[in-house]
Each structure stands twice: as structure tokens, then as C-alpha cells.
């Protein structure tokens, strides 16, 4: 029983950063901008939050600066990709490499391989929800997560409202679906693309802060370990719907929870279980794409 409880708790725990990336990234997806820089934005968020907290011993400031750092990356991405119409794949790749390089450079200069926040105890950051906490099983699964984890789940609903119930959401979708239509009613299409990318950037920064500072009190380089790309996979599988994409994010969270919890029993082969999330990702993508194309009768390239 314990292990199931642990797996479910860890599912929520590990889903949070992916969900944040997903609900932020869907706006760029809907605006028809392929943002592969989610990974880099998350990494820079993780790094800046831990570094700031390490130097100022102020976690809130760390989270804030993490979002600002990711936002800055978002501005660079939009400027090059939207204003100057550069190739978004190359720009995204550059940003991913840059984030990792900055972190590595600073770590080397600090003469350390990771930043540890020794002034605080991550257990203190966990919120215990009254009443819920005391319900057996459910309490131990739902309660005791850090603040940003709760924000990520509430964010799903918030982003759904923003996407489907407000002008802003409609305009982002119009820009992505038919840019000419948007222009013909005088929408500043670049503005909506910027906004969509920047929402994603801020969410990624938050995800990074959650990943490093809030959950572990620790930063090691490349600790995002492909979560940004997993988020992109979730967005594509869920076709940019906030709820559906978030469900895929949770599936990938579950995969990581499985890998963490099962590896305990694996003894010397424990490291092997680290591949579970990635194997599941490949399987999910395969299944989704097979289902999507099972009816395809068109040969070769499709003319869209």
C-alpha cells in the first residue's frame, strides 16, 4: 500500500514542473510558434533561483528572479524568432545550449559542481493542508507539496479560462490558425506571438524554481533532464488543449514516479530504471501518432 501511495504522491510531485511548462507552452503552440526553448528557459530558472537564494538567502526573491531570467530568454527568443523571423529551431537550440553553458560557467567560477542551499530545509517549504491532511491515503498524496506544485495544478484551470473565455485566448488562437484573418481585423499578430511566448517563458522559470530550489534546495547542471522536451511532447499529444495536454504531463510525471520508486527494489540495476520516463515518452508518442495517421491514405508528403 505504501508504495502505491508513494508513487501517487511522486506523480503529483514530478508532474508539477512539466505541467507548468505545458500550460505555458500551449500558448506558443496555439500561436503557431514552435518553442523548443522550454528546456533552456526551465534550466535558467532553476539555476537563477538557486543562485539567488544561495547569495541572498531569500527564496521568494530567487523565484522572482528565476521568472525574470526566463522572461529575458523569452524576449530574446521572440525578438529573434518573431521580429527578425529567424529559424525558431536554431534559436531554440541556441537558447537551450546557452542556459546550460551559463550555469556551467558560473559553477566552474564558483569552484563547485553544484549549489546547495544549506541555510534551509526543503521540508519546511511543504504546505500541509488542514483537514485534507488527515484523510487517510488521500491526505498523504495531496497534502505536503510545495507551493508551486499547487500553483501548477490550479494553473491548468486558469489557463483554460484564459485560452477559451477571454479575448486574449481567442486572438492567440486566431493568430495561430489564420494569421491573415488576424491581420484583417487589425490585430497586431506579433504582439500576440510575443505574449504567447513570454507566458510560456514565465511558466518555465517557475517550473525551474520548483525543480531546484523549492523541491531539493539544490542545483546541479542539466538537472532539467529533458523535461522541457517532454513538455513539448505532452503539448503535441494534447494538441494544445490545456486539460488534455496537462493529462499527458501527468502521465509523464507518473512515469518518473515509477522510475524513482521502482529503482529502490532494483539493487545494482537501479540506474536502469531512469530510462522509464523516456521509454514511456517514446511509446506514448508512437501510439498517439499511429492513432492519428491510421487513416492516412495519402502518399508521401501531404500538401497542407
Amino acid at each position, binding site marked *: 500500500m505504501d508504495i502505491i501511495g508513494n508513487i501517487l504522491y511522486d506523480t503529483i510531485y514530478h508532474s508539477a514542473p512539466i505541467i507548468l511548462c505545458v500550460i505555458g507552452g500551449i500558448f506558443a503552440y496555439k500561436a503557431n510558434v514552435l518553442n523548443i526553448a522550454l528546456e533552456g528557459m526551465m534550466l535558467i530558472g532553476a539555476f537563477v533561483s538557486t543562485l539567488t537564494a544561495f547569495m541572498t538567502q531569500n527564496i521568494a526573491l530567487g523565484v522572482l528572479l528565476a521568472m525574470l531570467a526566463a522572461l529575458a530568454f523569452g524576449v530574446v527568443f521572440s525578438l529573434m524568432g518573431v521580429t527578425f523571423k529567424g529559424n525558431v529551431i536554431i534559436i531554440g537550440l541556441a537558447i537551450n545550449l546557452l542556459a546550460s553553458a551559463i550555469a556551467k560557467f558560473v559553477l566552474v567560477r564558483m569552484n563547485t559542481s553544484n549549489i546547495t542551499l544549506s541555510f534551509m530545509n526543503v521540508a519546511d517549504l511543504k504546505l500541509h493542508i488542514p483537514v485534507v491532511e488527515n484523510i487517510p491515503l488521500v491526505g498523504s498524496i495531496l497534502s505536503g507539496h510545495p507551493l508551486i506544485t499547487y500553483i501548477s495544478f490550479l494553473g491548468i484551470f486558469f489557463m483554460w*479560462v484564459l485560452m477559451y*473565455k*477571454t*479575448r*486574449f485566448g*481567442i486572438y492567440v*488562437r*486566431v493568430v495561430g*490558425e*489564420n494569421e*491573415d*484573418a488576424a*491581420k*484583417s*481585423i*487589425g*490585430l497586431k499578430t506579433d504582439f500576440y506571438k510575443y505574449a504567447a511566448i513570454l507566458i510560456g517563458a514565465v511558466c518555465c522559470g517557475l517550473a525551474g524554481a520548483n525543480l531546484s530550489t523549492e523541491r531539493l534546495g539544490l542545483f546541479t547542471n542539466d538537472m532539467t533532464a529533458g523535461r522541457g522536451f517532454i513538455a513539448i511532447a505532452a503539448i503535441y499529444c494534447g494538441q494544445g488543449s490545456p486539460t488534455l495536454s496537462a493529462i499527458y504531463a501527468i502521465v509523464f510525471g507518473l512515469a518518473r514516479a515509477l522510475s524513482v520508486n521502482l529503482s529502490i527494489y532494483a539493487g545494482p540495476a537501479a540506474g536502469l530504471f531512469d530510462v522509464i520516463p523516456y521509454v514511456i515518452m517514446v511509446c506514448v508518442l508512437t501510439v498517439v501518432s499511429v492513432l*492519428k*495517421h*491510421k*487513416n*492516412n*491514405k*495519402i*502518399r*508521401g508528403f501531404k*500538401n497542407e
Partner: protein
Amino acid sequence: MSIIKTIDLTKKLGDFTANDRINISVEKQEIKCIVGENGAGKSTLMNMLYGLLRPTSGKILLHDKETVINGPMDAIAHGLGMVHQHFKLVPSLTVYENILLGTELKKSSKSPIIDRKKEIDEVTKLIEKYKFELNPTDKIEDISVGGRQRVEILKMLYRNVDILILDEPTAVLTPQEVDELFVNLKELRAQGKTIIVITHKLREVMELSDSVTVIKQGKVVGNVLTKDTSEEELAQMMVGREVVLTVQNTAENKASEEIAYQVENVCTINDYGKEVLQNISFCVHKGEILGVAGVEGNGQSELVKVLTGLMKTTKGKVSIYGKDVTDKWPDELRQNGLGIIPEDRYAQGLCGTMSIADNCIAGYHNAPDVCKFGLLDRKNISSKRDRFIKDFDIRVGDINGNVGQLSGGNAQKIIIAREFESNPKLLIACQPTRGVDIGSIEFIHKQILNFRNKGNAVLLISSELSEVMSLSDRIIVMYKGRIIGELSPKEVSRSEIGLLMAGIQNNKAKGAFL
């Protein structure tokens, strides 16, 4: 008093003068048609009126006041609305969402949430006011092309424009939808709107407009009242010489009994698993042109894709002179004597960034006269190109240039030359004259008839009903992925075929079908 007037309006795009001192004037509450061939400069003119392009020189007067229009929103603010040829609608949104796009109604001025109910009410009122036929909550992707066009018009009317510009509004409509559009436009005129229609369909000009302006090579060459002119006169002004408007299929039907092309019970599905072709069966005899009529989007595209090897069938059989060619790839089909004029010449027929010579042999790279020991024989290819240019009267600026630089008509002639020169026994011609100027249309139609007269078979698929009617020996009509009637063009009228295209089977057509 004229409501809109241009004085010496000129637009230069680089060295090219797209519009040269255009002077037009439109009266209040009239329907004005602006006609001209493709590339004559009609769209440039309209884009200047709508603020999408800045004039190089000249003036635009609105209500006799000089006005500078800085983009579409500004145009709308001045009471000038435009319905583009390619609709600017968002398919996944509903009719009411599209109409109110940009002016959404919120629950209150402070609330960020959109008020769905209020929006639907507003649009329902609008639809009733102008007597349009629409359901506000339908999604755009689910409604007909005619419906989409009505949404575009309403989108402008909601913004209180009093001048409406329509760019090639009938290009994608059935004859019945065209009639309905005309009724709607005349109703709008009665309610005080001024309408400018850009078109090259002269029959519709005569039916709809009060006055006509003809543009040729960027200049106004004629300004007439509709009641004082005729189709022939307008055509002559457009082209600058006398043209045969419709090349008639005058030859006696000498189709033999021998079946050249047989299609039996062909079915296929699209990406979403929907059956887009249902049991399509027909045959084409030797020396016969079989026309396929129908409103676009009723399976013709898929049929052509299946027959030209771009898409697989789920069921059925296709044979050329008795030889089974079902699901064969395009090169195998060509080896079996099939010539293909594809639907979208730039996507499937030509490579715009390659030279004219390369395009002249596309699909026939392995023919022995151009390819020796796996190497292309450049000299032969060039002489082939020169022969095509001479024989098919292809007008090229730079003989070594890319196909992308050619006009639609000349690009199409390259395909025609290439396919006819490979001596096929069967030709599938899909939209052979789409986006082609009147002079070239005449030429292409004659080529197709000549080809038939040599005893070959032709399958002609076109959404231009007049083209199908004037060329075909027999016509089949497609509706929702099925063939719902077979007719003889000599025995039926336009409106009878139009009804079939709209899915309404009358007794006559049924009789012919059964």
C-alpha cells in the same frame, strides 16, 4: 456625386508599374464590376483602396474628400469593407465568433470574460436584418463555402461599412449559391450600400452590375454602363483582340464503344476516417471527354489524387485499356499511358524554383531521349524546351529562368506541353484553366479537343461549370463523395446541373443515372 473616386492612382512595384494612373469613380448605391485578366492589376487597385498597399502617387477621394487609408482597420473606419477571395475566417471558431472577431462583447466593461449569449443574440439580429441564411452557432469548418462567404460579408456589415468590395466572389460557389449571393447583394444595394465586385466572369458582370470598368495591363481601358455593352465587347477590351469565349465541342460525338478507362467501385477515406469517395464507378470511352462537375470539396480532389497515384483506395478497381492500375504510383501510371494535368500546378505539376527546361521533363526523366546511361542529356532537354515554347506559344521572359517567374497561363502551358508530348492514351485534366488568362484558356481548350479528336480519352474535372459543359461529351456530377447523376451536356441546362451539384436529384438526372 461619387462615393469613391481615384485620381491618377499609380502603384509601382520595383520597375513594374502594376497600376498606371487609374481613374475610376463609383456612385452611391451602385454595383460596380471591375474586370480584367489575371495580373491586370485589379487586386493591386483594391489593395490600395483597402489600405493594404500604399499608392506610389495619385489620390483617393471618399465622399469627395481626399483620404489616406492606412490599413484595413482604417478602411473599415472610413466605411470601406472588403471580402477577400481567400476568406479570412478561423475554421475552428463559430459563425458568431468570427463575425464579432476583434469586437467581442464582454459580460461587463470590466470583466475579461466574453458573454456568449449576448454575442449570439447580436449576430442573430444581424442575420435577420439582411435576410441571410446562417446559423450563428455553427462552426466555420462545418458550413458550405457559400455560407462562409456570407459570414465574411456579415463581418463587414457588422462594422457598419457602406462600401463593400468583393474579390472574385463567385469563384468557389455553385450556380445556385451565385444566384443567392446576387440576391443578397441586390438586397444590400436596396438598403443603401455601394458594392464593388472584382471578377473575370463576364456573364456574371452582365447579370449583376450597373457599370463596368475594364483594366488591362495596369491601365483603365474601358468605362461603360452595363446596359450599353455586351460580353463580347468586354472580352475584347480585356484581351485586346477578339476571342472565342467558349470553345465549343462541335465535333460529332464519335466516341467508339471501346472502353479506355474504367473505374469500378472506388472508395477511400480521409485522415479522419471519413469516407470521402463512395463507390465511384464510371468509364471513359476511346475518343470521348468525360466531364466531372461538382462544387469543390465534394470529393473531386480526392478522386484525382486516387486516380493519379497520390492517394490509395480502400476498395475498388481502376484499369486503363483493361490493364489493372489500381493503387499504382504516378510513374507506373505514366508508363501505362496516362497524362496528368494536376489540380494545383505549383504543388503537384511544377517545381517553381527549378528552370523551365527541368520542368519540361519532370516526371519523364527516364525517357530515352533525355536520359542516357543515367545521365541527363542537357542539349536534348534544351531543344525540347525550345520546341515546347514554340509549339505551345509559351511566353517566357528569360528562357533560362525559373518556372516561378511565369504567369499562371504560361506555367500551365508547360504542363500541357509536357503531358501531351509524352503521347498519352488517356488524359486526366483537373482544373486545367484555373487562374489562366482568357487567351490561354481558349488555347488549352482547343488542345484538349484536338487530343480527343485523335481518338484519345479525356477525364476532365473542373469546378467551372461552363468549362465542363462546353467541352464534355458526357458529364457526371459529384456530390458528397458520390456520383449522383450522369447527363449529356447537349440536353440539359446550367440550372439543372446546378441543382444536381447542390445534391438535389430531379427525375431527369435520375433517369439518366439509372
